[in-house]
C-alpha cells in the first residue's frame, strides 16, 4: 500500500500509519483510592499503510487507573507473524467536562446483596461525546520491517463502538 500524504499542522508533520480495532468483553473496576479498571482485549484487527495484522486474543488489557490515563498493555501480531508489544497510554475526556470537578468522585453504590456491580459497558461516543486520544509506545523486533516503530512517536484517536463492544484507534506517526 502506498504511504498516505504527509500532512502539516502548525509546523507538525504527521501521517496516518495504521488503524486498530480492539474488541472487549468485560470490564472489571476496582474502586481503589485511584480506581483501576481492567479491560482485557479479546481480539482485534490491524489495517493501514504501515502495519497489518491482528490483536492477540487475551494478549493483554487496559490496566488504567487513577482517573488518569488509560494504560493498556497488549500484543499485536503482524501479518508476517512478528509480535509487537503496545503500551497505549490514553485519555478519555467527556466533552464539556469541568476539570475543577476532577476530584469529585464517588464509587457507585453496592448491589442490594452487598456485592460489587461489574457490568459496566463504556457507551459509544454517539451517546456520550468523548475525546479519546492515545500516545502509544511500541516494542517491535529489531532487524525487522517493524523496527521503525521502536523510534517513532505516535498519536491516536479512539472511537467507541458497541455491537460488538470495541474501540477503533487511528494511529498517526509524528515525522
Amino acid at each position, binding site marked *: 500500500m502506498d504511504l498516505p500524504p504527509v500532512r502539516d499542522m502548525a509546523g507538525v508533520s504527521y501521517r496516518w500509519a495504521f488503524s486498530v480495532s480492539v474488541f472487549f468483553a468485560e470490564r472489571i473496576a476496582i474502586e481503589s483510592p485511584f480506581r483501576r479498571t481492567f479491560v482485557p482485549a479479546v481480539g482485534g484487527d490491524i489495517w493501514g499503510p504501515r502495519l497489518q495484522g491482528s*490483536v492477540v486474543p487475551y494478549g493483554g488489557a487496559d490496566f488504567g487507573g487513577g482517573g488518569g490515563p488509560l494504560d493498556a498493555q497488549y500484543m499485536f501480531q503482524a501479518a508476517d507473524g512478528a509480535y509487537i508489544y503496545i503500551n497505549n497510554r490514553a485519555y478519555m475526556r467527556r466533552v464539556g467536562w469541568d476539570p475543577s470537578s476532577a476530584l469529585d468522585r464517588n464509587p457507585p453504590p453496592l448491589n442490594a446483596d452487598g456485592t460489587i456491580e461489574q457490568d459496566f459497558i463504556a457507551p459509544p461516543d454517539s451517546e456520550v461525546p468523548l475525546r479519546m486520544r492515545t500516545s502509544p509506545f511500541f516494542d517491535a523486533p529489531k532487524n525487522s520491517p517493524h523496527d521503525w516503530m*521502536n523510534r517513532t512517536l505516535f498519536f491516536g484517536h479512539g472511537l467507541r463502538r458497541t455491537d460488538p463492544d470495541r474501540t477503533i484507534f487511528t494511529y498517526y506517526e509524528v515525522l
Partner: protein
Amino acid sequence: MDEFVILADRSPDLVADIGFEPAFELTLHYGRTQTEQTPRGKRIFRPITGGTISGKIEGTVYPRGAGEYSIGRDDGVTDISEHVLVRDTRGEWLYIRNMGYERADGYYRVTSWVDADVRSQHNWVLGLFFLGVAIEHDDGKVTLRYYEVL
C-alpha cells in the same frame, strides 16, 4: 481471526482526524551530564537547573531536584525520560513528564503529561497530553514546542 474483522470499520470514513495546536514552549537548562553504562543501556542523567515556559502557561522552571533520566540504546536512539517542575507567574505549580525518542537524525519528539492543581487557572491541562517537538541548542539548552493534540 476473522471474528474480529469488521470490514466496515476499515472504511476511510472512519480514519479519525487528528490535529495539533500550539500550547506552550519550554526551554530547559541543564547541569553536567553524567552517564553510566547499565544493563538497560546507557543511563543519561542531567539535572535541570532552570529555564522558562511561555505561551498559554507563563513562568519559570524550578531549578532544584528535577532532571532528565534517559536511556541511550544500543541502536543509537535515546529513550527520553524527563521530569520537570514549573512555577507560573502567579506561583502556581505544574509538573511536566516527558517521554519520547531522540535520534541521531535530529528527530526529538516527546509525549508530555502535565499535572496542574485542580483549583488552578491551568486545570484545563488535566487529563490531556501534549506533543513536544524539541530542538537542542548548541549550548546544550533544549527548547520544546508543545502542541495540544486535537
